[in-house]
């Protein structure tokens, strides 16, 4: 038996950098360093653990859609231990929304061949968290999402989804789309050996024509949503800071009372 896992990853602007919008109201990717979205590291980690715990022949492919620099995210995933990578890159993709991104991912996943897709719970820049559900809808396979525990056995994926009201045990037959949370298990650091090995691993580049996608289906013009304006949030006006000299709690209570919270 073999098990083909495709892990979707995103290259995002560093959250500790000065993130802002470009003139066309897309996320500016030039002025801030990018990196593999932290939440996608958990997806790579779970793919590696499934592989390590499996008697099957497991092949892990990492897939990203993004500009040239997005290769850095693929390299990181390869250095953690993934086997190969696919980079979908095309100038016409600039400004693609979540619906369009799910189209590109779904087409690429089908072309790559898969039994299991693993994604992170959300990206750290857009934070929508809807792409795994959209990819499952497009592929027409079960959605087993937001798992904090996941296992694969005999063609079945099982996992635990911790919701607000209850913790649920889920089960679906492969092929399926899974997403994992940051509670699924600490992601490993790439070893020196892993980093060296990653340099020799294959990275395929596909463009929209490889996926039979027309330019007008994606990009800013193909988006089904439009950002009309983006404004920096005004800095909060400086508050009152007091040093506790024995009465700090009472002073704070006085403030809360003045604001009608007590």
């Amino acid at each position: 038996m073999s098990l083909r896992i495709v892990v979707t990853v995103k290259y995002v602007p560093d959250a500790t950098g000065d993130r802002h919008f470009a003139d066309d109201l897309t996320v500016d990717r030039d002025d801030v360093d990018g990196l593999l979205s932290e939440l996608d590291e958990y997806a790579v980690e779970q793919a590696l653990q499934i592989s390590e715990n499996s008697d099957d022949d497991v092949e892990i492919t990492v897939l990203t859609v993004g500009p040239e620099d997005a290769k850095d995210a693929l390299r990181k995933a390869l250095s953690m231990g993934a086997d190969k990578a696919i980079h979908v890159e095309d100038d016409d993709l600039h400004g693609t929304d979540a619906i369009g991104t799910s189209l590109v991912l779904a087409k690429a996943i089908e072309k790559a061949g898969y039994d299991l897709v693993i994604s992170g719970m959300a990206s750290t820049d857009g934070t929508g968290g809807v792409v795994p559900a959209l990819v499952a809808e497009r592929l027409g396979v079960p959605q087993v999402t937001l798992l904090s525990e996941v296992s694969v056995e005999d063609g079945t994926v099982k996992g635990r989804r911790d919701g607000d009201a209850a913790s649920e045990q889920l089960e679906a037959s492969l092929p399926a789309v899974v997403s994992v949370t940051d509670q699924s298990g600490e992601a490993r650091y790439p070893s020196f050996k892993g980093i060296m090995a990653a340099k020799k691993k294959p990275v395929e580049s596909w463009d929209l024509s490889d996926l039979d996608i027309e330019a007008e289906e994606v990009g800013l013009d193909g988006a089904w949503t439009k950002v009309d304006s983006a404004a920096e949030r005004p800095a909060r006006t400086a508050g009152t800071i007091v040093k506790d000299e024995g009465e700090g709690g009472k002073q704070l209570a006085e403030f809360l009372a003045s604001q009608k919270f007590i």
Partner: protein
Amino acid sequence: MAEVLVYVDHVDGAVRKPTLELLTLARRIGEPVAVALGSGAENTAAALAEHGAVKVLTHDASEYADYLVVPKVDALQAAVEAVSPAAVLVSSSAEGKEIAARLALRIGSGIITDAVDLEAGDEGPVATQSVFAASFTTKSRVIKGTPVITVKPNSAAVEAAPAAGAVEALSVSFGELATGTKVTGRTPRESTGRPELTEAAIVVSGGRGVNGAENFAIIEALADSLGAAVGASRAAVDAGWYPHTNQVGQTGKSVSPQLYIANGISGAIQHRAGMQTSKTIVAVNKDPEAPIFDLVDYGVVGDLFDVVPQLTEEIKARKG
């Protein structure tokens, strides 16, 4: 007047507060028509009518509890086809966003997630979003199909606006994908008796400075004196001091209460992402240089083990 579909989040007929907030926003755009699914669906009608629902479409089937997400998408799609609404509003819970996204794709419509405000516009509803750890505010529209918009809790006030709330049965047929992911077990979360974190008017949080699971008792005591929910920073959760369901921040919950009290939390970007839109922010921290003090309306530089118990006592005394 155009109808606006509102997906109802309820527990056995008890409507959750974010759904009532959606009704307030829906009334700005048109006439709210609610869709309530699953066990107790019909029991939601009174509360929904009280807050402006002209109609309540209901359907119950075991599939809603036994399978993940997709049966609800099938039902909401049936409601869209029956009503032809001007927009569809769903609460921004994890499940709400997944339902909304799949619905949008199926009906060929754009989706906006995590709106914090919504108003009518000449070219359809305009959604406000708070992005990049709340450092930017964007205004967006759906430009294809029926706008599907998910809205964060605490984005609007709950308003009484009595309407008919006539219950009508929704006819739903489930597709092949509906039974794809089986829910084989469900353990309800133990109730703490405190308000839901994302819905609470006041949130009291503890971070690294709390320094131990046992010390969270003083955070809880302060929360209880104010009728507040308890939150925790990632550092506190990763250290195992408090459950992940209470985590506030980028990888946890995003909260927007009237009052947020941060105790022993430095205010790293990951945390700010989850609380920066709170109306009033208060912090207690030993370190005068902690970035959280850049956000506060009122801050106390001091040891939380002195300040917090004194604050709790003072609140209790004032409340009598």
